[in-house]
């Protein structure tokens, strides 16, 4: 079995940090960029916007749908707010398609790297942490079931 190098997750994080650096601390531009990233993510079909897929601990509604293909985990997501959709799109961009083990072991330093806490505030940073926790919970469940 071939495991992806952890650097893949790191490379994608580094790309995101670089993209945010180009916005030179322009808060409005950064928020619009996050929203644009969310818009690029295909919407989740309504049938998947279920209570079971709803992430607890977020100010807005966020649905996360996992899908296992071989030893890889893929994620789709949606939210009723544009910024939250953008936030989860970042997590999906970094982690979707990785193995459960790699997801569990990942260190998402990009959150600090782009100054997410200052950008979105403590309540939404808490929401982002809930999204990440849910992704890791799904990964842990997959390892347990394997």
């Amino acid at each position: 079995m071939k495991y992806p190098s952890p650097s893949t997750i790191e490379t994608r994080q580094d790309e995101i940090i670089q993209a945010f650096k180009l916005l030179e601390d322009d808060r409005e531009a950064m928020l619009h960029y996050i929203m644009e990233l969310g818009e690029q993510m295909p919407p989740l079909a309504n049938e998947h916007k279920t209570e079971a897929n709803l992430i607890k601990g977020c100010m807005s509604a966020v649905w996360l749908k996992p899908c296992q293909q071989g030893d890889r985990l893929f994620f789709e997501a949606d939210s009723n707010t544009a910024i939250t959709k953008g936030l989860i799109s970042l997590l999906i961009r970094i982690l979707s398609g990785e193995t459960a083990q790699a997801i569990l072991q990942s260190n998402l330093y990009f959150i600090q790297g782009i100054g997410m806490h200052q950008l979105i505030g403590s309540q939404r940073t808490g929401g982002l942490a809930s999204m990440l926790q849910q992704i890791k919970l799904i990964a842990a469940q997959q390892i347990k079931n394997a």
Partner: protein
Amino acid sequence: MMHIVKNKAFNIPTIRVQFPALQQYIHGKPLIYLDNAATTQKPQQVLDALLSHYQFTNANVHRGIHTLGDRATSALEATRKSVQNLIHAAHTEEIIFTAGTTASINLVANSYGQAFLQRGDEILISHMEHHANIVPWQMLCQRTGAHLKVIPITDTGELLLEGWEQLFTPQTKIVAIAYASNNLGTVNPIKELIAKAHQQGAVVVIDAAQAIAHLPIDVQALDCDFLAFSAHKAYGPTGVGILYGKSELLERMPPYQGGGEMIREVTLDQVIYNQLPYKFEAGTPNIAGIIAFQEAINFIQALGYEAIQQHEQQLLDYAHSQLSRLPGIQLIGTAPHKIGIVSLAIPGKHHLDIGMLLDAQGIAVRTGHGCAQPLMQRLNLEGIVRASFAVYNTLEEVEQFMLTIQKLSQRK
């Protein structure tokens, strides 16, 4: 550039300079604070009074014989007098210090409601109430078997007065209504409601949380039985509330909370309660906050309600006239008689996203259900964006808010 006529009666720079919190930058932009319905900023004289109490007169009240205790007690009782004067109460002992509007309403529900309501009685509220004027009554209904009835509202955000008289029955025991709505800004015709309620023998509880900083209140002219508000929405400190009650009602009511201060004599077998207002003030109150609230009252009275209303009406009229011209903006609450609250929704855009993008511009507004989920259900909205004005807001700030809203509404 839109044409702006300034209100000459009001010297805004002189007012603004008294508020340290307004002098700061948020995300590199001058703070535009438009969340005054949630809480107002505090003038320097209130902050000075808070600090000065802790520095020089800190002692418990109504207890010690020593000088500091006496000074603290005198200052606290002076605030009670000021509040009496502010709302034109007949007697000083009709002013009860609480922790806030919510605590005041809960006091009435738990004391008056529990003592005088029974199964089958009715409590009348409106569809625009804040949760603080809904949930205590729902809880009282659960405990007593009383029923909650609701005065409906129109699409413009006014009480639907057509047929409202039928809602009053001989079983109506309490009418609890906001003087002004926290989300719609609507000023309700409470004098008419009070008169009608009294014809049926009901008592009336007025939630004046949104009124106190903006409208003159005369509890005797209104003839309301209870009136509740918070200091922090009127330039005072947090954690201080007022319950006004007619003395004949307060006398008949049992105490709500037991403890120190509210008793005259305690043995292990029995207790004799203290007189008004202390019967309802168990425990050590927020002494510093209450003392500093007097300075907030002084601040309001120095400006005068007439000038305050004139200034805030100008901000409201300007915001309404401009926003109503913008396509893609849904104005929420367009009653003819309003306080300075402008609520809106932009179809297709979530209120949390709008709030965050406004914050990026240094503009603070309230987003969400505004502590009134039944109102949001009635209006078929998940949430709103609410800008609420105070004495220190300027037409330029309102314009900046509108320009940002316009920009956001035009974004794909």
